[in-house]
């Protein structure tokens, strides 16, 4: 436990050395969402759209897009931060010294995952506050507990995704291209920007991604869109049960392979 705690403290200290990075993570989802809002307004003439409402369950475009942008922060920080966590250690020159210590790299990754969850949550709170104050988002106390429940289920699954992303960067080193591709796939196949019901393929693929169910639930809670609480919870839980062991297995396999090939600390 102490290793995980110290990992979080270390990452916080390093982040605090880069204040612009903090500002970036806070404002980027909002900056990213604003052009979409303008685009929507330009296309349909207002921020209400009947075709959009028939697919999304709500015709309120702004809150829909903002919620997608804000909560996708968890997914993208998991992919980028956990994916690049060991890569950053390579650049610091500390990876080999960590791996020479009697700590399984998994604990380091869990520490980095918890650090990401903590910061993502902090950023999300700031973003939600901005949305409540400036975009009229209705956030009451009774909505917070179910939100936390679904976010917890989402985060568990994201650790699995993070382990896979970390393995990927350990294996192929310069994984920016693949992580970007991963990001675009998520944009395409999850209801971040639009309802996945817009196309049969997006609807089918989105069923495999945990962010899909989390966004359905979170929008359901925040915007009052009808959704099946139990079914969505079980689906998210099911994905978590599969993706965590899968992520661990893939990471373990890649760690062993890099030690055999001697590419552990290669740039």
């Amino acid at each position, binding site marked *: 436990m102490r*290793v995980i705690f110290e990992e979080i403290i*270390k990452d916080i200290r390093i982040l605090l050395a880069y204040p612009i990075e903090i500002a970036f993570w806070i404002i980027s989802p909002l900056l990213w969402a604003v052009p979409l809002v303008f685009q929507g307004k330009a296309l349909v003439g207002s921020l209400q759209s009947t075709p959009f409402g028939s697919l999304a369950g709500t015709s309120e475009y702004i809150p829909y897009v903002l919620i997608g942008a804000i909560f996708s922060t968890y997914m993208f920080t998991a992919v980028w931060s956990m994916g690049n966590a060991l890569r950053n250690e390579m650049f610091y020159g500390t990876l080999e010294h960590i791996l020479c210590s009697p700590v399984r790299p998994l604990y380091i990754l869990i520490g980095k995952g918890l650090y990401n969850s903590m910061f993502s949550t902090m950023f999300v709170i700031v973003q939600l506050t901005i949305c409540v104050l400036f975009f009229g988002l209705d956030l009451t106390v009774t909505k917070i507990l179910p939100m936390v429940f679904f976010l917890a289920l989402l985060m568990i699954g994201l650790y699995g995704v993070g382990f896979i992303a970390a393995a990927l960067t350990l294996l192929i080193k310069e994984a920016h291209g693949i992580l970007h591709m991963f990001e675009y796939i998520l944009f395409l196949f999850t209801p971040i920007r639009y309802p996945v019901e817009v196309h049969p393929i997006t609807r089918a693929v989105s069923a495999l991604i945990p962010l899909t169910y989390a966004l359905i639930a979170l929008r359901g809670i925040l915007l009052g869109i009808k959704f099946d609480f139990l079914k969505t919870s079980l689906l998210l839980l099911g994905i978590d049960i599969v993706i965590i062991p899968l992520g661990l297995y893939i990471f373990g396999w890649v760690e*062993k392979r890099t030690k055999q090939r001697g590419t552990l600390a290669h740039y």
Partner: protein
Amino acid sequence: MLVEHAIQITSLVKMFKKRGDEVIAVNGVNLKIDQGELFGLLGPNGAGKTTLIKCISTLLIPDNGTATVGGYDVLKKPLDVRRQIGVLTGGERSLYWKLTPVENLNYFAALYGVSRKKTKNRIAYLLELMDLTEKRNERVEKLSSGMKQKLSIARTLIHDPPILLIDEPTLGLDPTFSRFIRNFIKDELHRERKKTILLTTHYMDEADMLCDRVAFMNRGAIDAVDTPRALKQRLSTEQVVEVKCMGTLEPDLFAQVKEVATLSLENKDGLAYIRMSSDNPEQLLPAILDLVQNKAKVLSVHVAAPTLEDVFVHLTGVQLKDDQVEECG
């Protein structure tokens, strides 16, 4: 665990794939290093020293053979092996530059499971030992290269390991810090603390000064193991002649020279340094000067005692240099 040999390496082989070809980095190495011994692994860059250290420290999985460290097998008990060792590498980038020395040491202490109370005392002790107490709360990025290396040593010692694997510890350091590091390894770690130390270096003087025993490593294999004194006695000659010339010379120039035990050539900054040992240097010297005089201007001739480098060249035919391996006639 009480074991006879702190490190025992048995028929260890490590291969890498390079552009489709298999390169043997470590080729059937056997070594036994006693408890409390300061053992030097010497060889040019690319000899396989670092690969061997990485196999011992569980960063690489050997293709064949095995090694035990503190009695634990590197393949079967890697976590136990890691508890026994401290790894120090040359170069600056092995610390978190955005953290302070205290924060760095605190983090690594946690990785090694050192209790909080012990960590605090140990950090204070190590910073004092390294003369870094005044810099304890400054970011590492503001420290000089030598101070960073001192801090790396403190990090290596944070859990007080019985076995130290030290890879090129003075690489890139100025002479003052290099001297400090060498004295610290010899006096504090070896004599006072009785640590078992496996040191890799391509600086022969460093090995000669520090080590109880040394092994010559070349092309992945161990060519000789003995004390520095015994190794130097392997050269039949007692004197080595150094000739310094202005100009650049090719190693082929000396291909026809006979009756020479060792001959090495280094071209550096417009100067050529020829170093040779022979049973009969008085007779050999005129022949060498004849060969050189049309190619370069002789600046000095100097007679010296043979060094480990002379023995290395004699045994392997390979000359040690900072940045490359050069074969001599």
